[in-house]
C-alpha cells in the first residue's frame, strides 16, 4: 500500500480579479511507496509545492483523490505519522531552538519529560546541541534549515515531506541534509522531497518524478529513466582523416586520435563499416548516457501539449 497516493489530481487557481483559471496540476497521479526516498523534481512553478500542500491538506484539489497511509488525507489524525518542512521556512524567530521544538512537540500531546528528551535528541541529531538556547533570529540559514528539519521529525514520522530542503544551502549544509535523509531511510522511514538540485537527487533518491507544467512527465528509478534511450555515441578512432569520415561530428583531435559523435545507430554502423577498408583503427565506442539533467531540460523545454491548452480554454 502506498504511503502517499495521489490520483488524477487537477488543481487550479484563480487570481482575485480574474475569472480565468490558471491550471497548476493537470491529472497528476503519483504513488510513494513505503521506505523509499522519492525525489520530486521540476522547474520553478511546475506545481511541486502545490502537490505537497495538497498532500498535507493545506489546499484542496479541484478533482482527484489524495490518500495518506491508505486513508483520505483530509483526516487530521493521519498527520501524527507525517513530518513536514516547508520551503524557505520563516520560523518563529523570537523563540529559542529548544522552545521552538518544545512548542511543536506539545502539538502531539507529549508530556514534559518526553518533550525534553525528544528535543535534546533532535538537537543533537541535526548538530545544534550547543545552540538550542539561542533565539532563531540569530541562526544562519543552514541552522534554520536544520532546526526546521528537527521540527519535522519531532513525532518520529513514518513519512517525511520536505519542500526544497537543500535550496539556499552551501555544500556542507546540503551534505548534512542529505545525510539526515539517508539516515531516515536507514531507519525505515519514507522521504518525499521536492528539489531542483539534480545532483543531490541522483545521489540519494530511490525513485524520482519529473513534473513539468503540472503534469508528471516521467517517474521511476533514475537508471530506468535515463537509460531509456541512447541519444548519441562517441567513437574514438585512430589513423583516419577528417575527410574520410562518412558522417558524424568531430568532437576533438589529439595525438592522431579523433573523437567523433554520431547521433543515430545507422550512422554508427556506417562509420564503423568504413574502417574495414582503410588503415584506421577503432579505439572505443561509448554510448552517450543521458543524465537526469538532460531529461529534465528536454522535458522542461518541450512545448506544452495541445490537450493542456485545450483544458485551459475549456476551463475559462
Amino acid at each position: 500500500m502506498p504511503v502517499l497516493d495521489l490520483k488524477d489530481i487537477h488543481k487550479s487557481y484563480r487570481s482575485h480579479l480574474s475569472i480565468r483559471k490558471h491550471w497548476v496540476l493537470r491529472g497528476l497521479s503519483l504513488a510513494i511507496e513505503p521506505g523509499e526516498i522519492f525525489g520530486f523534481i521540476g522547474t520553478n512553478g511546475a506545481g511541486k509545492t502545490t502537490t505537497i500542500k495538497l498532500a498535507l491538506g493545506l489546499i484542496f484539489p479541484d478533482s482527484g483523490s489524495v490518500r495518506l497511509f491508505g486513508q483520505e488525507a483530509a483526516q487530521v489524525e493521519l498527520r501524527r505519522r507525517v513530518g513536514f518542512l516547508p520551503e524557505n521556512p520563516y520560523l518563529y524567530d523570537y523563540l529559542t531552538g529548544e522552545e521552538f521544538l518544545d512548542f511543536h512537540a506539545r502539538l502531539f500531546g507529549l508530556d514534559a519529560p518526553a518533550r525534553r528528551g525528544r528535543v535534546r535528541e533532535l538537537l543533537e541529531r541535526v548538530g545544534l546541541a550547543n545552540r538550542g538556547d539561542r533565539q532563531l533570529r540569530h541562526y544562519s540559514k543552514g541552522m534554520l534549515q536544520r532546526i526546521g528539519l528537527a521540527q519535522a521529525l519531532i513525532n518520529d514520522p513514518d513519512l517525511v515531506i520536505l519542500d526544497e530542503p537543500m535550496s539556499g544551502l552551501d555544500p556542507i549544509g546540503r551534505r548534512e541534509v542529505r545525510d539526515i535523509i539517508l539516515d531516515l531511510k536507514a531507519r525505515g522511514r519514507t522521504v518525499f522531497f521536492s528539489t531542483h538540485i539534480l545532483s543531490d537527487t541522483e545521489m540519494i533518491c530511490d525513485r524520482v518524478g519529473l513534473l513539468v507544467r503540472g503534469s508528471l512527465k516521467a517517474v521511476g528509478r533514475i537508471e530506468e529513466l535515463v537509460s531509456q534511450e541512447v541519444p548519441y555515441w562517441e567513437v574514438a578512432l585512430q589513423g583516419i582523416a577528417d575527410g574520410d569520415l562518412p558522417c558524424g561530428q568531430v568532437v576533438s583531435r589529439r595525438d592522431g586520435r579523433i573523437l567523433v559523435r554520431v547521433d543515430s545507430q545507422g550512422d554508427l554502423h556506417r562509420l564503423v563499416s568504413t574502417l574495414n577498408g582503410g588503415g584506421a583503427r577503432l579505439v572505443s565506442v561509448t554510448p552517450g548516457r543521458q543524465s537526469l539533467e538532460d531529461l529534465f531540460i528536454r522535458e522542461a523545454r518541450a512545448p506544452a501539449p495541445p490537450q493542456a491548452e485545450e483544458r485551459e480554454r475549456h476551463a475559462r
Partner: protein
Amino acid sequence: MLVRINAIALNTFREAIRHRILYLLLIFAVAMISFAQILSLLTVGSEEKIIKDFGLASIDIFGVLTAVFIGIGLVSREIERRTVYTLLAKPLHRFEFILGKFAGLSLTLLVNTAVMAVWFFLVLLLKGMFDWRLLIAVLLLYFQFLLITAMAVLFSCLSTPILASVMTLALYAIGHLLWSLDLLAARLTAGWGKLVCRALYFVLPNLGTFDIKGEVVHGLAIDGTRVLWAAAYLALYGSATLWTACAVFERKELQ
C-alpha cells in the same frame, strides 16, 4: 484538543509579550493616564471626573489598538510567513489554531489591561479618588477588547492585514455609534429603511453595551443586570464571530 489549543495560546502569548509594539502601546497608555493629572489642572471642571474619564478612555483606546494591531499581526503573520504550514501539517485542527490564537491574545490583553488598570488605580489611590466601580468599568472594557479581538481574528482570516485593521477599527467606531442607528429607526416610518436600520442595529456589534464610563465617572449606580447582559452579549456575539472565523479558516486555501 485542549492541549493543542493551549500550545497555540501559549506560543501566541509568548510572541505578543516579545513584541515591541505591545510595550510601546503600554508606555503610551501609562503616559496618558499620568497626563490626566496635568490635564485636570488645566481644565475647568471636577478634577476627579477628568482624571477618571481620561484614564478610562486611555485604557479603552490603547486596549483596542493592542487588540487590533497585535491581534491582526499575530494571525495574519502566521499565514503570510507560512509558519502556519508547519502547524497545520501536524495533527492540529484548523479551528484549534483559531481558538488557540484567540485564547493567547485574550491572555495578552488581560495582562495588558491589568498593567494599565493597576497604574490607573495607583494614581487614583494616591489622590484618594479610588472607586470600586472602576473595577467593573475596566472589566467591561476587557469584555469589549475580547469582542474586538474575535472580530480582528475573523477579518485576518478573510483579508489582508491592512484591510483587516481598517475593518476592525471601523467596526469599533460603528459599534460605539450604534445608538444613532436605533434613533434613526425610531424616527423613520415603517418601510424598508426602518427594517434595514433595525436589522443592522441587531447584526452590528453594539459596543455601547460595554461602556459604563459615564455612570462610573459621575458616580451613578450601576445596575447588576447591565454587567450580566454585557457578559451574555460577549458570550453570544463573541462565539458567533469566532465560529464564523473557524468556518472561514476551515475552507481557506493556504496558498
